[in-house]
């Protein structure tokens, strides 16, 4: 069965900052398709534009250019009531369990809000849905009468998930939903998310910088570097061996719980360049160990290599499609 | 550097808008200076016809018979040429008047600022370091009370105690009338140096102490509060912990790490506070017959002398703007984080 695209991004671009001199190009002409029912893991270093891409996809941050299509319909500039109800199909789970819940409202009100505003539920109808949801995320319905400060980080994250799920969205952006949590709690939340994805047939953009987490939840992996997607691959393919030198370095840098820690590490020199002033040519060339002259001048395109993965590199580590 | 230029480039724009606002506000004041002038001059012998004629003549001479728009046009034109017009009463050149009074006000407000900052810093730091003790409570209480003291009350109190009862300090003016002073820059301290007249300094200071302290006291209370809060905030910052980790003594931590960083919020507040200082100088200068712009402004308002009110208001606003630009630059100098661009 051919997967149906749910979200399609075309040349999506987000820029920040006022005057021309210092514009941060956080997301640079990203083309990306997210298919119905899949979980796409988005990884990359801090500041590479993951959150911005995620936010722009659901238009909490307005894109500066490009198109967003949801089930084929262009929602890039959609406004008014239609947009509000459409957008309720697109929800977000946030990273910070403390900043993402209004400290002055009751849990039930927080979770009911999208039902009342976007789905036109009556208060009593909403109440039922909320109770069910709170049960589902493992908090219990009596949690509805309490306020956020009475909950721990992991519990708050469950509330955030309940709120995101309240309007029965088809698509959820989860922006580092577990990175603020302790390992033991992190595992609980990851499990909860996996269950919900499975039970509700959710489509998800799962943002994380932790490859381990992504590995356990995503179906496909997209790697971002300096505002661009540089590699997209099926999960197992990616972990078996990334096609982009950056992906390779990333994977090898993760400290592992193994007897022999001295496995080969690819040490990247330097750090992520200034997003306001990206290097010419391939943006990764300043840190790449395979760099050749071409990389310094010519920006590579996102090309399809074997296994249907896409990579933005002049010299991918996996042979190009058809060149085998 | 670019930020500096940007700040400076904004000044003319601010000034233009300021002048427009002043122009508009002044025209809202009730009463016309012309009738006042005509009436003032008229002895009991003048007839009604004389006054009507005089009023019209004066209006024409002052340009008040023209449309508001053309008045505005010539007003802007004049401002560009640094010509602020002349007083309705006798045609004193306003630019000249400001030249006479602005330095006095600058001396007063800067002196007040210095006193306030010295007192405020000292007490604020003390209160922060002794947080929660009676020293803290006392300092904060006194600070709040002095911050709430109205200038006029303080000024009058100072005059009664130090001028009349103790007779330590003179109560009016800027320099003794008996003294020959031929201003060069009209900043007494500067002139004392340029003209080699050290004997000017003490009488000048003597006259400055009361009005400046009056102005300073209420502000010092405010600064105490800000300094205390700011120092407490910085004391809680991680880099102070780093400094302690280095084994630095508390006084070295205070000097090298806390003071500079806690001065950042203080500096911004100072800029704004300078405004209230200028507002306070309007009252203080009246109480002390101190020859500054505030005094000029009050006279102008009472006499409906538009050009003077206009000029004085502009000068005050200009001074305030420049001080704030200066404060911004100081902020840039103090906080390297802003210099990134």
């Amino acid at each position, binding site marked *: 069965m051919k997967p149906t695209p749910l979200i399609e991004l075309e040349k999506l671009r987000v820029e920040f900052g006022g005057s021309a001199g210092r514009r941060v190009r956080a997301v640079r002409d990203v083309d990306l398709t997210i298919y119905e029912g899949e979980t796409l893991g988005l990884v990359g270093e801090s500041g590479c534009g993951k959150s911005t891409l995620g936010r722009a996809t659901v238009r909490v941050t307005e894109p500066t250019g490009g198109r967003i299509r949801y089930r084929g319909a262009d929602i890039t500039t959609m406004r008014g009531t239609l947009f509000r109800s459409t957008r309720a199909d697109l929800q977000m789970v946030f990273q910070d369990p403390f900043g993402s819940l209004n400290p002055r409202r009751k849990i039930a009100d927080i979770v009911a809000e999208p039902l009342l505003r976007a789905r036109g539920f009556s208060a009593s109808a909403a109440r039922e849905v909320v109770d069910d949801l709170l049960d589902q995320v493992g908090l219990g319905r009596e949690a509805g009468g309490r306020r956020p400060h009475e909950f721990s980080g992991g519990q708050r994250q469950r509330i955030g998930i309940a709120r995101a799920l309240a309007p029965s969205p088809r698509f959820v952006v989860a922006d580092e939903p577990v990175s603020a949590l302790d390992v033991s709690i992190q595992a609980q939340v990851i499990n909860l998310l996996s269950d919900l994805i499975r039970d509700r047939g959710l489509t998800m953009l799962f943002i994380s910088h932790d490859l381990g987490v992504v590995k356990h939840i995503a179906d496909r992996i997209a790697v971002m570097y300096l505002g661009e997607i540089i590699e997209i691959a099926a999960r197992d393919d990616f972990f078996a061996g990334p096609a982009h030198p950056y992906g390779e370095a990333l994977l090898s840098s993760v400290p592992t719980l193994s007897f022999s820690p001295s496995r080969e590490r690819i040490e990247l020199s330097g750090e992520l360049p200034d997003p306001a002033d990206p290097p010419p040519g391939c943006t990764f060339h300043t840190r790449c160990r395979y760099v050749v002259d071409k990389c310094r001048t010519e920006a590579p395109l996102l090309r399809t290599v074997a296994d249907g993965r896409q990579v933005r590199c002049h010299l991918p580590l996996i042979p190009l499609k058809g060149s085998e | 550097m670019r930020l500096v230029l940007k700040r400076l480039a904004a000044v003319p724009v601010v000034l233009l808008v300021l002048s427009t606002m002043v122009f508009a506000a002044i025209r809202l004041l009730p009463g016309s200076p012309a009738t006042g002038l005509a009436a*003032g*001059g008229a002895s*009991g*012998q*003048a007839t009604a016809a004389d*006054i009507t004629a005089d009023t019209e003549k004066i209006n024409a001479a002052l340009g008040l018979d023209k449309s508001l728009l053309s008045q505005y046009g010539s007003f802007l034109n004049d401002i560009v040429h640094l010509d602020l017009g002349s007083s309705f009463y006798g045609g004193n050149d306003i630019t000249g008047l400001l030249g006479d009074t602005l330095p006095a006000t600058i001396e007063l407000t800067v002196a007040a600022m210095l006193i306030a900052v010295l007192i405020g810093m000292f007490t604020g730091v003390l209160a922060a370091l002794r947080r929660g003790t009676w020293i803290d409570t006392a300092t904060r209480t006194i600070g709040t009370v002095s911050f709430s003291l109205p200038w006029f009350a303080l000024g009058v109190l100072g005059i009664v105690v130090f001028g009349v009862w103790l007779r330590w300090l003179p109560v009016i003016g800027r320099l003794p009338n*008996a003294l020959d002073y031929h201003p060069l820059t009209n900043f007494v301290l500067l002139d004392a140096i340029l003209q080699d007249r050290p004997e000017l300094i003490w009488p000048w200071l003597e006259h400055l102490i009361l009005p400046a302290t009056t102005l300073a006291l209420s502000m010092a209370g405010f600064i105490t509060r800000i300094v205390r809060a700011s120092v407490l905030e910085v004391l809680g910052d991680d880099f102070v912990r780093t400094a302690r980790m280095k084994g630095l003594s508390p006084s070295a931590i205070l000097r090298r790490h806390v003071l500079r960083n806690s001065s950042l919020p203080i500096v911004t507040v100072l800029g704004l506070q300078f405004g209230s200082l200028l507002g306070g100088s309007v009252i203080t200068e009246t109480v002390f017959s101190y020859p500054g712009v505030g005094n*000029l402004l009050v006279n102008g308002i009472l006499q409906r002398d538009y050009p003077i009110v206009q000029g004085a208001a502009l000068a005050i606003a200009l001074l305030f703007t420049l001080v704030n630009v200066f404060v911004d630059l100081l902020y840039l100098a103090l906080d390297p984080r802003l210099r990134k661009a």
Partner: protein
Amino acid sequence: GVAAEKDDASGGTTRSGGTLTLAIDGTSAINDPAFYTTLGDWMAVDCICRGLTFISFETNEPAADLAESWTVSDDQLTYTFKLRQGVTFHDGTTFTSADVLASLNRQFDDKDKTLPEGSSRPLKGIGDNLTSITAPDANTVVMVLKKPDRTLLGRLSDIGGRIISKAALTKYGADIGKNLVGTGPFKFASATSGQSVTLEAFDGFHKGKPPIDRLVLQQVTDPSTIVSSLLSGDISATQFTPYSALDQLKGDKSVTVYDTPKSFDAFLMMDVRRITDLNVRKAINLAIDRQALITQAFFGAAVLPDGYTIPPNQDAYDATLADLSKTDVAEAKRLIAAAGATGRTVRLMAASDSWHPKAAQLIAQNLTDIGLKVETDSVDPATYFNRLLSPDDKFHDLMIWERNGYYPDADDMIGSLAKPSGVYGDFISGFTTLDGSAAYADMLFEAKNIADATARKARYSEIAREWADKYMTLSMLVCASNPVVSGAKVKNMNWKALGNHRCYMETASV
């Protein structure tokens, strides 16, 4: 302390040196006899320039000054002045008739080139009555009038009649106010608007160099600061002392309080166009508790206006007019009731400075007590003036104001107050709109020229009584003084003049 009985300008004038500082109401740094800005500036003019005649306020008669002597023709129309010789101006030029012509012409001719814009010419009235003014020689000036004017000599002593160096007038033109040059005891040194005027003793003053070196007129606007700076010694003397401080100052040895003549009128103007009923106006006049005003607004520095508008220090003062300012609340109530005016609203306007607001509150109470409803409005002096003179002003029915006698003659008081075409008769009270008012112009002119003092006084009293009885546009409140106070060290100061806002400091020492 209180001034000793005999502490006058008559004492010996030994040079003491030093600086004498007078507190003034304000200065625009323009000292020009043809341009009024503030009382303070004209005090400076008083010191810098002197006129043909001089009134010391010790007596009420004009005395010789720059005119050594004069003769008046029998028809009272030609005045021949012999000028004093050997007098020099501050700029070194010698005083001649040319200076007199140049200076007086600025008053008489509104086209004079040396007049600044917005100038006021206090002697304009003399100019209107003038056929010619000529100088047959350097030491003689001849003025020929159209109609006789007995007050001419007195009015020439006024500020407007001050003689300026012609050379300086030629040099500075309309800017003379910033560079005034006269023959007076003090020469102009410097002035800053809103602050002070500094004058220096003139070596060549024809009556001898004044004892002090320097005279500073310093603007002090805050009343409590005036008191404080008198006590602290920052101010040597002033006539702007707040009344309320007098008792205290009298008890303080560091200052001297003078018993200044009660020379100015405090009164209540009634706009007859708004309060049309004569009986209501009379009732208002009867309602006022003047004794309360004297004690509570003037703190004793005032007397009952027994001479109606003529203050007690003037020749035409006639105490038999006391009944014009009597207080009879019962009668006032009756009049109001009879006029059907009970409960009527009257608006009372006063300036917000000095004694005015206090008087307004006291009077408001009096008027309330007779059944009127009073709305009081205290406004700053500039607004006050504007409203006063604006013919379509809707703010006031009753206005509290004052008139100083700048030279001591009844014509300057009742003459200007009752004249229908004057400011008081026209703008302020609307007297000119009433039947029969026109006659008062002639009556007052005729009265002022009666040569015999007793007859003149009687005529003025008649006019006053009739004016009050028939029209009652002006209710006298009190005759008050400008209380002069000086530091104890100040001696031989002409405080009587200062009490009339005139400044003769040539004998004073510190």
